[in-house]
């Protein structure tokens, strides 16, 4: 019984990683860049929702929408100011810039909201927790898993069925050829960031509803974990992010419960290394073809 409860707790934690990893993988898949600032956009999204809800007294839905809008705008702005000038630069240059953006957002948040802990309200409390025998599944977990699947299906449909989505895939496959086909690469990448950042806002609300500590560094560790999850599942693959996230959460909780609470992080990362050794591009990653 305890095992099943741990498993469910693991899925709960994993679903949070998964929803953040979806944003990571989306941006990586199309723009081919590691957006290290993704975790910090989540943090900003959390603060926006917190402020509109607690200070301005907006209803939950309005707070969520405000958070999504602000994050989307922030994503587009960051992309325009910091990443767009670096189109065609080495991936390392983009990575360092992303880290710069991450520092910037954290310090802005520190100045605006100080480092005093804020406790995020549970914004999905309409969903009660479900108990089957001894086992409890919290409402937040149910909503998060549901949201993950919905977003995954939505993103997959979007990229395979719509014209814009197809353009995104084309950009991801071969930027130069896509441009020759008349696809506006810049607009497509901006759109990707907009979607990724919007997802970050949703992730922020679900993440913070489950784990309500809101501080300027709230986004960094989940960001790294979600990045790990995305790589675990095969970065760039949308179902991979979901599977990677859930697996990571389950491994973390089981490691804590049955091996050591002290070493759980070491175990999670060790499993990642072992998986990558046997499947160098992650669980669902595409095989990299070498071009001569």
């Amino acid at each position, binding site marked *: 019984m305890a095992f099943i409860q741990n498993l469910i707790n693991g899925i709960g934690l994993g679903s949070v990683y998964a929803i953040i990893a979806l944003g990571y993988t989306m941006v990586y898949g199309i723009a081919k860049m590691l957006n290290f600032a993704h975790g910090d956009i989540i943090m900003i999204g959390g603060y926006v929702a917190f402020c509109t809800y607690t200070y301005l007294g907006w209803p939950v839905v309005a707070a969520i929408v405000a958070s999504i809008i602000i994050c989307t705008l922030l994503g587009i702005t960051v992309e325009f100011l910091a990443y767009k000038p670096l189109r065609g630069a080495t*991936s390392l240059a983009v990575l*360092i810039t992303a880290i*710069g*953006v991450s520092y910037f957002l954290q310090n802005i948040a520190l100045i605006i909201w100080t480092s005093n802990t804020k406790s995020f309200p549970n914004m999905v409390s309409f969903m009660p927790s479900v108990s089957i025998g001894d086992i409890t599944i919290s409402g937040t977990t149910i909503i998060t898993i549901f949201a993950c699947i919905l977003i995954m299906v939505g993103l997959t449909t979007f990229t395979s069925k719509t014209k814009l989505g197809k353009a995104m895939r084309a950009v991801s496959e071969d930027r130069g050829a896509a441009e020759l086909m008349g696809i506006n690469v810049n607009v497509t990448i901006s759109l990707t960031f907009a979607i990724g950042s919007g997802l970050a806002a949703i992730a922020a609300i679900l993440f913070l509803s489950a784990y309500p500590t809101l501080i300027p560094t709230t986004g960094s560790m989940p960001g790294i974990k979600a990045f790990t999850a995305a790589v675990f599942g095969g970065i760039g693959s949308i179902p991979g992010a979901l599977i990677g996230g859930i697996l990571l959460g389950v491994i973390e909780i089981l490691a804590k419960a049955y091996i050591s609470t002290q070493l759980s992080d070491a175990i999670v990362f060790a499993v*990642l*290394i072992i998986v990558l*050794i046997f499947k160098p591009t992650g669980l669902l990653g595409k095989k990299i073809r070498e071009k001569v």
Partner: protein
Amino acid sequence: MKKMINKSTVTSFINYGIVIALFAVFQTLSATGNLSRQLTGLLIPICAYVIMALALNLVVGISGELSLGHAGFMSVGAFSGVITAAALQNSVTNDVARFVIAVVVAALIAAIAGLIIGIPVLRLRGDYLAIVTLAFGEIIKNVLTCLYIGVDSKGLHISAVSEEALGLEATGKAIVKGPMGAVGIMKISTFISGIILVLIALFVIQNLINSRTGRAIKAIRDNRIAAEACGLNVVKYKLIAFVTSAAIAGSAGALYAMNYSSITPKKFDFNTSILVLVFVVLGGIGNLTGSIIAAIVLVALPELLREFSDYRMLVYAVVLILVMIISNNQKTRAFIGKIFGVFKKKKEGEDN
């Protein structure tokens, strides 16, 4: 061909020259009492960061692999150096000798760590390799946080539980205390030893780069498939660069640790790895002189910006982003290229 060799030797000597000149300047300043306490305190950490930047540049710039966990090697070196120094405290009384032994042991153990992690990891590519090095750094930090090591007349005691579990004699003392890190370190790092280590690191890296091995490493970076087709053993050469870099990072860790009376595993986290990566990238990937200067400037800058307090990290972030954009944007690059192009053409004209 002859000219090329000359050029690389010249750059090498420029680097030695810069380091020695800086040493002379600071030494004179401090001898004449013109160096503030603030700057004096920064000298050894700067040396350690310069060595770290050089080590990481070998992996990122010369070997072309992105490592996000280099602070892990620094950590391994720092802790093994500190433990060695503490264990030898009674048998080797000379500070200099103990320092040298500690640094050598630190470099060796970090090299072993580099080998263990390098063999499986270097088969991976690009971002996957980056994430594994990141994971490795986190594992090191996590494991060291649980580690307790003590020393008494019977030798070293190791435990993963608590200080009492070490079962030390009354005269023994705990060196590494889990989350508290290593405490009661003898401060035996000096500015001179730091400078000497910088010079050794430069010497090792520059000779490696200019050797046959170094050319092979660069060939693999530039075109792996072509290099493979020429019969180069890719994993072997990548491993040479990686392990050398780990060893140098380990010695930097030992130098750093023995400058403070306590160090914690938390210090060598992801953020420290990134910090060093920033030195390398801002200094110019593959450019050793750049790494040295960037490390010095970027360690000193936040300290000199102390008056800005709340805003200094913000300024730092903005500067970082701007520098990246200006140095990497094609338009600004073309613009800068044009300006320098004029000079270049003139120079070439003069040569002719």
